Every structure is written in C-alpha cells, then in structure tokens.
C-alpha cells in the first residue's frame, strides 16, 4: 500500500466527481421535458398539442350532409368543384351548431372579382371580365346566381 499514501486526495476528487454527476443527473431530470427524445430530438407531446387545435373550416363533407339541395343545384353548374366554404368562409361553428350560428351571406363584388376580374397573370382559358366595362356599378348577382352562374 505504499503507492496509496495520499489516498484522501483521490477520495476527495472522486467525491467531487460523484457530486458533479449527481447535480447533472438531477438538473437533467428537472429540465428535460418528459416526452423529449422519445420520437426524435424534440418533445413528442408537442405533436398532440398541435393536433388538439380546433378546426375553423368544417370541410365539404360536413356542408353536404345538410345542404344536399345546393349540392344538387351545383352538380351541373360550372362552380360545382368549388367548396362551399371557399366563398362562404370558415363555418365549423355553424356545422357544429346549425341553430345557433347563422352564416353571413358573402358580399358579391369583392368576392366575385377576386377570381373573375381581368388580370394578366391569370391563365388565358380562365373566364375573366373587365368589371367596369362588363357591369358598371351593377352587382354581379343581379344577373348571375352564384351557385349556377350561367345566365338562364
């Protein structure tokens, strides 16, 4: 035991090391969130938190459940492939509570012109008009019914 004459130095160093490891272990357990690293280098619970966000747009399926008449009306019209909420806005609250939430009617001129005002960027085949020349100050819905825009 001649080589271990000053063993208390080594013991002190070992104790310090052990304390360091302990502090690291406690700090890590405290600071790292419980689900961190289970699915990758991130907090797995965050995925559930993002999924839990409520929806605003109910989706076309929800609209068609009750409004079959409008779906039929549009079946042969040129607007048939446009989702209801594209024009009527997000209505998940209405789909959940049809009696309590009454949707507001969209206002024709800004809504129609978003798509149908002439603009050089638009594809050539897409139907557009120069609004002032086409309708003057008249509203679009005077002549065109939005669900079936063809003039009868």
């Amino acid at each position: 035991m001649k080589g271990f004459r000053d063993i208390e130095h080594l013991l002190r160093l070992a104790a310090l090391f052990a304390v360091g490891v302990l502090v690291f272990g406690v700090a890590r357990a405290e600071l790292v969130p419980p689900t961190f690293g289970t699915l990758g280098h991130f907090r797995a619970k965050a995925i559930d938190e993002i999924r839990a966000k409520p929806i605003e747009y109910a989706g076309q399926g929800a609209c068609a459940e009750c409004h079959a008449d409008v779906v039929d009306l549009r079946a042969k019209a040129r607007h048939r492939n446009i989702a209801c909420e594209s024009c009527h806005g997000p209505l998940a609250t209405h789909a959940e509570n049809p009696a309590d939430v009454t949707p507001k009617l969209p206002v024709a001129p800004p809504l129609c012109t978003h798509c149908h005002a002439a603009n050089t960027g638009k594809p050539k085949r897409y139907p557009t008009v120069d609004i002032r020349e086409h309708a003057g100050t008249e509203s679009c819905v005077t002549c065109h019914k939005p669900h079936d825009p063809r003039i009868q």
Partner: protein
Amino acid sequence: MDSTRREFITVGSRMFVMTAVGLAAFNDVLAGTPEKAPSYNTADHWWAMVIDIEKCIGSGHCVRACKLENNVIDEPHYFRTWVERYHVDPLDMDHPTVDSPNGGIDGFPETYPDGGRGKAFFVPKLCNHCADSPCTQVCPVGATFRTNDGVVLIDKEYCLGCRYCIQACPYGCRYLDPRTNTADKCTLCYHRLTKGLQPACCEACPTGARQIADLKNPKDPVHEFLRTHQIQVLKPQMATGAKTFYNGLDGSVR
C-alpha cells in the same frame, strides 16, 4: 451456490443495465402518443403539396383561409402561405419583377398592360415540408422537427425565439410571431390532416390549383398527376428534399 465475487458483479451489472434499457424502451412505447388515435397512424402517411401554376388565378382564397384557420396575425408580412406574381420581361429573363401586395390576400391589382411583351403568372408559396429541412437542423433546442409522416412542425412551448430557423429556411417560409415571440409557419394544417380533412388552403382554392398529397397512399390521385406532368421543386440545388411540387413552374422563379 459457488460463484465468485467477480461473477456476481459481472452478472449483477449486466442485469442492472438490461433493466434500465428495458425500462427506457417501455417509456417510449408509453409516450408514442400519436399512435394512440386508432384511425391515424403516422407510419401510413407521407404528406406533400402539389401546386398547379397553370390553374392558379391569384384570387388569394388560400391566403385568407390560412389566416382564418390558423389564427395568423392579420397584418402584412405575417404569412404561412402567400401568393407571388411574377412578371418576366423577355429581354431580361434573369430578373423577373415579383410583387405580392399584402401576400396577395386581396388579389392583385391589374398592373401589367395586356398584350405587351413579357408574361405574368402566379406562384403560391408555403412551407416546403422538406424531408431534410435546414430549419430543423439549426434549432438549438429541438423545438422544430419533422414528424414521422413528413410534416415539419414547431413546438411553440419549447421555442426560444432565437430566429435561427427563420434565417436557415431557403424559402423564407418562417416568421417570428410577435404575440408569442416564437417562430411560426405552415403546419400543413396538421390538426386537420390527422382528422381526415384537407388543409384550409386546399379547401378554399376555387380552381383546385393546390392539392394535398399523401405519397404513401397508392390510391391518391397525386401518383397519376406526377406520372403525367413535369414537376419541379423550388431551389433543388439546396438538396432540402422539398415536398411542395410545382407543375408548370417557370425557370425564372426563385
């Protein structure tokens, strides 16, 4: 029992290590919560977006729908998706004029005279949900990540707001939300996808220019579309594995 002390220590320490590893694995099983929902399994999906430039009319429906669905701050410069209008002059094809008035949320004013030289077209932009995204690699705390089904998300609870990811994104798809001081961007409407709904922008698009695509679903019409069209991604030289596919993308688009 005639085992030596050495044997006892070796076997004992092995059992200790094995128990610890087993416990850790069991914790993973318990924490794998996205698989809890029986109808949605992350391993069955690989999400992408297909954008058909030839169908985009620049109506801004997608921008409005995105802001309403995701409670994006209703001011210019905060967009999860936006629409750009390119105008390419044939005498200077390398320097197209790009405008995006308030992200195209109210459509575009008629700026370029029809019949003049050059061409104009719309390019909707959003997070490319890169398979090897630079933004997730630079996050110092692991607050942004790609899920098993190919969607890049942000953990708003864990984000420090250091803005590294905003600088790292080659597509400019991220911004700092001033309300929470955390990074924000398109989630591909992950809360809708996992409920079986399409993202709000695709729902609102009147011409079908934006289509959500599940590349792991063999019945998805995207496969036929990819076979019959020439598809490009933005900045392929960055090797980000971008998954927003453009049909009819002009070479001048950056």
